[in-house]
């Protein structure tokens, strides 16, 4: 009789696997990564160490990790609010870029006399509003014309990136910049204060952590979080309860836009310090992986953003030390999402190994 490998539906979703699946996915990703290194002709153990241990074996490395994780967690926590309500904002990348443009543009306009303490807060406000404005377009089209927010928000990302290109190649180009497509450097008042001397870790990371904490409280204890859950899980029950679905679509899109815009401002007012065509680093897209890796939960998102940030750093380190192409970071992120989706099957199903039950006559 042939061996029979079957998936059997569980009577109830497994709480253990809800948290176990991401861990199993990370483990499988590491194994597959080791195999990949071996096939490419690199010693697997050493390569994994270069990839995952070396980047964070110094204070500076840890600071870089936090710095990378900051935009990811900001974008992901915003997206997770919408995802819980079945509102699929795929355009955090575009909202991130518009946030950077709004904040950066404001800085360039006002920093003529060097700027004061007020410059950074104004930039933050401008960035948040910019991200919200960009997310308001899919919100309006969805609630007014029932246009699919996935397509609209995704397409607007390319508009945002082209707008950035236009501005740094044209009107906002630094006149003293040897014709490089980048803006002037921001004045001191337009930069985030550094937290640890000798590193690039800045105030933005602390703000992001505070926002994560607030989001955790609102999503688990707040009426808003409750409404989001009901709308996502049972739209008819939400209507029966009297929750206004249009308002929730607006709120979740504006919130995720605001947080992506904030991440954009933090990026240019932090490590970059000017507007360049290299600002879009796919944080907005990668944040989708982070949101799901973190089970749409703020604590999970914190851990997920650290894992993904490490894969970015590992990719750079592998490029420098092992001469591997930088694309290997993307390969790791892709494998992680792939294995996570596969492992999620275990939440609702269990694997039964055995011989098939004989069908009764």
């Amino acid at each position, binding site marked *: 009789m042939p061996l029979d490998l079957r998936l059997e539906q569980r009577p109830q979703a497994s709480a253990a696997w809800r948290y176990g699946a991401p861990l199993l996915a990370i483990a499988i990703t590491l194994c597959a990564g080791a195999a990949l290194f071996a096939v490419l002709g690199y010693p697997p153990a050493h390569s994994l160490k270069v990839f995952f241990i070396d980047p964070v074996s110094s204070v500076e490395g840890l600071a870089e990790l936090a710095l990378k994780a900051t935009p990811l967690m900001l974008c992901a926590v915003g997206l997770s609010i919408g995802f819980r309500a079945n509102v699929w904002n795929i355009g955090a990348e575009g909202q991130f870029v518009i946030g950077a443009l709004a904040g950066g543009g404001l800085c360039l306009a006002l920093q003529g006399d060097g700027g004061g303490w007020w410059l950074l807060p104004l930039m933050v406000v401008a960035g948040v509003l910019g991200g919200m404005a960009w997310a308001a377009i899919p919100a309006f089209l969805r609630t007014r014309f029932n246009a699919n927010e996935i397509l609209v928000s995704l397409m607007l990302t390319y508009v945002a990136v082209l707008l950035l290109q236009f501005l740094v190649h044209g009107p906002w180009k630094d006149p003293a910049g040897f014709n490089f497509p980048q803006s002037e450097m921001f004045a001191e008042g337009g930069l985030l204060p550094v937290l640890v001397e000798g590193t690039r870790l800045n105030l933005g990371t602390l703000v992001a952590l505070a926002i994560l904490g607030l989001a955790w409280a609102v999503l688990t204890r707040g009426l808003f979080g409750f409404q989001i859950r009901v709308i996502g899980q049972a739209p008819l029950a939400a209507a*029966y309860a009297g929750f206004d679905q249009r308002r929730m679509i607006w709120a979740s899109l504006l919130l995720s836009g605001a947080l992506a815009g904030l991440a954009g401002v933090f990026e240019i007012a932090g490590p970059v310090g000017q507007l360049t065509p290299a600002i879009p680093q796919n944080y907005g897209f990668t944040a989708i992986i982070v949101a799901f890796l973190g089970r749409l939960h703020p604590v999970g998102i914190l851990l997920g953003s650290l894992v993904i940030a490490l894969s970015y750093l590992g990719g750079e380190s592998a490029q420098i030390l092992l001469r591997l192409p930088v694309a290997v970071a993307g390969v790791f992120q892709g494998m992680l999402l792939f294995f996570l989706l596969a492992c999620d099957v275990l939440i609702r199903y269990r694997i039964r190994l055995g011989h098939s039950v004989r069908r009764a006559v």
Partner: protein
Amino acid sequence: MDRLKLEGITKEFPGTLANDRVDLSVVPGEIHALLGQNGAGKSTLVKMIYGVLAPDAGRMFWEGQETTIASPAQARRLGIGMVFQHFSLFESLTVAENVALVLRDAGSMDDLSRRIVEVGDRYGLSLDPRRHVHDLSVGERQRVEIARCLMREPRLLIMDEPTSVLTPQEADRLFMTLRQLKAEGCSILYISHKLAEIQALCDRATILRGGRVVGACDPARESPRSMAEMMIGQELSQPHREPVEATGPVRLEVDGLSTATGAPFATEIRDARFSVRAGEIFGIAGVAGSGQAELLLALSGEVRVAPASLKIDGKPAGGLGPAERRALGLALVPEERLGRGAVPALSLADNTVLTGWKTRGLVRGGWVEGAKATALAAAIIKRLGVKARGPADEAGSLSGGNLQKFIVGREISAEPRLLVVAQPTWGVDAGAAAAIHRELIGLAERGAAVLVISQDLDELFLLCDRLAVLYHGRLSPPRRTADTNVEQIGLLMGGMFEAAENADAA
């Protein structure tokens, strides 16, 4: 020789044993009732007989021969026909085309149409083969389904809750057809939870409880009450209510209410008029799909209507949303429990917040008061005797009847001035139904206006002081329960408003 004999049929689904060593025999020319509460395993059993599901263990004999029924097609070849609760007809095709789809040797359309009329005449199923199914009433559609089975001259016909979509008069016609089939030697396996009709129609009954056969009886020698007690396995205490002439203030006034939900296949309400007073229980009858869903949406506030066409306690409420209407004293139990009345993946405590977030102090300053919600859920569980481990249980883990008790308890515990409740005991076992009826009667006695929308006439006559009937979105003028009877309400349910008036005069 038995026409069909089952021995030790067992079927397990993950987490439940749906059928546990079920034995059953059906002889030629009998109408055999399969009785049991929801979840007792009736549907699973007939699906195995019709080849939709395969049993895990046990043996099946068809006319003395051991058989495996692997598919509905094979079941039909053997001579088994089944009329499902939900019809499987193509709305855009004609009656004859729908019949042709399931016959192997349909022949020419003219020829087939003639045969359909023949079968129809023989069994009292008047049918026009050229009409499109979407033009037919629910009763007529059922006739198409039955005629389609009869074209194949079945020797066993399975009927799953056939009268739930019929008026009492249509049900009587159906029974005549079934008795004629029986006289010709066809066996009928009849599933229903309406005990009175089983008593009138069936020769034998097999009673299932929790997937097991717990008894058999001759329905003619039992009372509906004794059969109900066999089904639930304990004694039943039915609540009783004398109709009253309510003189309290008008709590709900519906005056010229019309809906425009715009949903496909909606039966829009046209110009409905009625009022419900404090202390009164008002019933709305009607076969499924007569506009009950649309009326409920308009009453709850999920669909807005003209402000003055719906007044709660004298205040125009047609333009208000659900939460604002709750603030005026409305509570409402919707027809669908999972997904509308309760969120399956949320705990019972969280499910109290669903309707209490604005009016019951469960949310303060934007934060959910978890302890209060838990206490409220615990109180509801205790008051209604809901079978759950506690307020932390997910709503989806409760059985249908227990969840219904919880939802009714949640709405009643708000002590509303006006309660609207749809299908309060649909699919609920007799014990739970009695508990729910008692709560509704108690609420009315405490001075609330209660509106019951139901397809179960026994329930409406048990509870209500006045009744109106919904037919194709039109509401009949209300009449006192004491001045009417099942016959008259049945005529109204079939849309014969004039005939009912004449019956009134007679």
